């Protein structure tokens, strides 16, 4: 019988710990497929964040370092500077990248570190139980914003991709979503591009993936996908952010 679908060898057989319907698993698979297709699995080191995806190092079959909360881009910088010919990528949540780790991501992008960043934005702190993130939408409920995010109290959510795209050395920034198969395919090609850029040494590349957290959004998996489409995408527009930049 012909095999039409199989686990990519970039993923380990370990059962993922994610909640039912959580899209972290989809993003892991996309990263894994790209590592396999580009044949870079045996030259890659990933930097795991603090968040629900900390244990990504159990799931993706390459070398890994576990970083302190938000510091993954600095850790990745250290690794890449030591092994410039290897592939180094971080996988970070929105609390990790857009809150506690803002300085590290901004300066890694400013320096044009030749790393790939997978930024999973689920508009919430998943791991710690649904507290408000800087990316939580205005009005969106969170365990530390029980009445919804009040924009007078907290301001409006941060758009990291747009901010980073102002930096000349941030050569590739794209926002994608994984709420349906067509968008998953687009997400994969953006992730692929972000790794190809590293192979060719272009510069800093980041893919922001809009993602769901059914558990803390208190929705069914299907409702969560719908909510992402109807609420997140209007505020976080998809596509390439800023023009591709040439860096001398």
């Amino acid at each position, binding site marked *: 019988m012909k095999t039409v679908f199989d686990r990519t060898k970039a993923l380990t057989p370990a059962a993922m710990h994610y909640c039912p319907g959580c899209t972290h698993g989809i993003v892991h698979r996309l990263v894994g497929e790209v590592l396999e297709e580009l044949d870079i699995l045996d030259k890659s080191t990933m930097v795991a964040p603090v968040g629900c995806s*900390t244990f990504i190092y159990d799931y993706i079959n390459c070398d890994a370092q576990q970083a302190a909360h938000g*510091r993954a881009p600095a850790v990745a910088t250290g690794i890449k500077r030591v092994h410039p010919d290897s592939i180094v990528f971080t996988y970070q949540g929105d609390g990790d990248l857009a809150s506690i780790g803002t300085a590290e991501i901004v300066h890694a992008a400013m320096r044009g570190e030749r790393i790939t960043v997978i930024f999973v934005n689920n508009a919430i702190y998943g791991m710690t139980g649904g507290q408000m993130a800087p990316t939580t939408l205005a009005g969106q409920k969170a365990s530390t914003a029980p009445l919804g995010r009040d924009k007078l109290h907290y301001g409006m959510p941060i758009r990291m991709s747009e901010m980073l795209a102002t930096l000349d050395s941030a050569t590739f920034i794209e926002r994608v979503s994984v709420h349906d198969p067509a968008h998953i395919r687009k997400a994969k090609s953006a992730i692929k591009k972000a790794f190809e850029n590293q192979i060719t040494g272009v510069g800093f590349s980041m893919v922001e993936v809009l993602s769901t957290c059914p558990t803390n959004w208190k929705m069914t998996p299907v409702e969560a996908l719908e909510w992402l489409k109807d609420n997140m995408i209007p505020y976080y527009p998809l596509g390439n952010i800023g023009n591709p930049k040439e860096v001398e």
Partner: protein
Amino acid sequence: MAKDLMKGNEAIGAAAIKAGCRYFFGYPITPQSELPEYMSRELPKVGGVFLQAESEVAAINMVYGASGAGARVMTSSSSPGISLKMEGISYIAGAELPCLIVNIVRGGPGLGGIQPAQSDYFQATKGGGHGDYRLIVLAPNSIQEMCDLVMDGFDIADQYRNPVMILGDGTLGQMMEAVEFNEPKKRELPPKDWATTGIKDKNGKKRLISSLFIQPEDLENHNLKLQMKYEEIKKNETKFESLDVDDADIVLTAYGTTSRIVSNAIKALKKIGIKAGMIRPITLWPFPYGAYEKAADSAKAFLTVEMSLGQMVEDVRLGVNGKKPVYFYGRTGGMLPDQTEIVEKVKKILGGEI
């Protein structure tokens, strides 16, 4: 061998490069900025990488990444910057990564001042970051000893897979002395077969650098393993110098710059017929408690002198263990202990006035 006249901060850099350090991540702060400046100039010449980070937090995490990737790597800072590095130091200790961290101490707390101090003793030796971990803390009292300890420090870090701190102060960083670069004693260094290079090892096994042990029994076992290592370090690496301790009526304790002032005070005391000796810890952790066992029987009293308001004195008390009184004299905020004040204090102690 010809000696070079060098400023302390630059000598650290030269010794590090001689020891094979090729990566430096740091952030400017007085009074240690000559060190990153030196590294930015000299590292590229030997194929190394100097990177000025956006903060001390980022710098120490770059050290984590580089060390985890197998490199010989260092960072340096001064007190407020070292406070920021504490998160990373705890992770480095937890993940058992070797590296060298230099603290050219200035006065605190808070922004404090920019003059020399020894008020980071607690932070360096008793934790600073979270968790049951230990930093190996080396405290030179001359530029020559600083070079020797930097070179040996990298080997110590590699031997035990543990971060090593050089605890200096602004005086040592800024003054000039003649130095030569001596090969440290040969150590058996284990292969870095744990480093993440991106290339899996021979058995196709991936490597992981992590301080996370989510199962309580795993975390306890990891900590027990660390403790066994720390016991080994205590046994093998404790280092101190003792000066005229055996027949001393009073034994002074001082480290780093302060020990130079104290040894002058001891000479002055000898001239007026007072038998004083000195124990100079060279490793602050592990602390040389053993040096006090005999001295606590033979001496009448102990005096600890520090550029702080009393931190190391607590370890001296542990060493003396209640057998004899332990007194303290210190200046802080960038003020140096004064030789004549030390002499006066000793006279008062032995004269029973305090």
